[in-house]
């Protein structure tokens, strides 16, 4: 059973790596924020699976923390004016 | 296997951080690089702690916990310093301004 849960965690990590392609491609800033959402949900699921496969109950609390911090992070991002994003771009423009 | 893998990763992370500190002149990015170097050191300590024969060693864990708090204090202070620097000179990097 533990092996299966670990396998599922590994699968989710691969899935996350595939999602990271979207951050790399962009093209808009909102796409990057989207991946933060993907990260939030997937790492929570991965931590829960790890918690039960390693029999370490504290990781469930870490997962709980992750859920709330993901929400705070997205609020912090949307309080950001758009021109800030554009002006901090020092290279090729990678937003719309 | 695990210890070896994470040791190498910590070494490479340290290398990436050091490279960033040497190459980037824009100050916030340099601060990011220094933070990555700090994380690499924490990783080293925890790998050593995890490999002690009788269970995880609590002393390095406590040290890293302290290290994380010190790192965030330092980051906050450095960011205030960068704002101050920009206000004084109007530049985002210390080498710019007079030489090109």
């Amino acid at each position, binding site marked *: *059973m533990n092996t*299966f*849960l670990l396998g*599922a965690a590994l*699968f*989710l990590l691969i*899935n996350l790596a*595939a*999602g990271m*392609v*979207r951050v790399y491609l962009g093209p*808009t*800033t*909102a*796409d990057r*924020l*989207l*991946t933060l*959402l*993907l990260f*939030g*949900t*997937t790492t*929570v*699921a991965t931590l*829960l*699976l790890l918690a*039960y496969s390693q029999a370490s*109950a504290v990781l*469930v609390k870490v*997962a*709980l923390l992750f*859920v*709330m911090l*993901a*929400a705070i992070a*997205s*609020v912090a*991002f*949307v309080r950001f004016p*758009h021109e800030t994003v554009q002006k901090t771009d020092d290279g090729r423009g990678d937003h*719309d | 296997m695990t210890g070896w893998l994470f040791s190498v990763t910590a070494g490479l992370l340290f290398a990436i951080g050091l490279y960033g500190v040497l190459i980037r002149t824009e100050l916030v990015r340099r601060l990011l690089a220094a933070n990555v170097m700090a994380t690499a050191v924490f990783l080293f300590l925890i790998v050593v702690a995890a490999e002690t024969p009788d269970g995880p060693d609590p002393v390095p864990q406590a040290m890293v916990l302290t290290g994380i708090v010190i790192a965030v204090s330092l980051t906050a202070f450095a960011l205030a310093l960068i704002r101050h620097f920009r206000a004084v000179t109007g530049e985002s990097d210390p080498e710019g301004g007079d030489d090109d």
Partner: protein
Amino acid sequence: MLTDWWTIALVTVGCAFFLAGTVGLLRFPDVHTRLHALTKADNVGLGLICLGLMIHDGTLPGILRLGFIWILAIFAATVSAFLIARWHESAGTED
């Protein structure tokens, strides 16, 4: 032993939902459709994994904790997705 099979089935289906979310994230044409794919599929996937782990856990505090995490994740994802979509909209009108 039957409970083990339930757990395996639920976690597997949950992982499939995560896969669907990522495919949507990569293949859909614009931000709104990607947002749509991601938030819905991933949170269903998380719910199914939580359900599977609840069956695996079997104790009342464990079940409550997992359920709580899922409900919180749904709330947080709803608000975050809405805020990001709105932020993207306002970017479109300003530019």
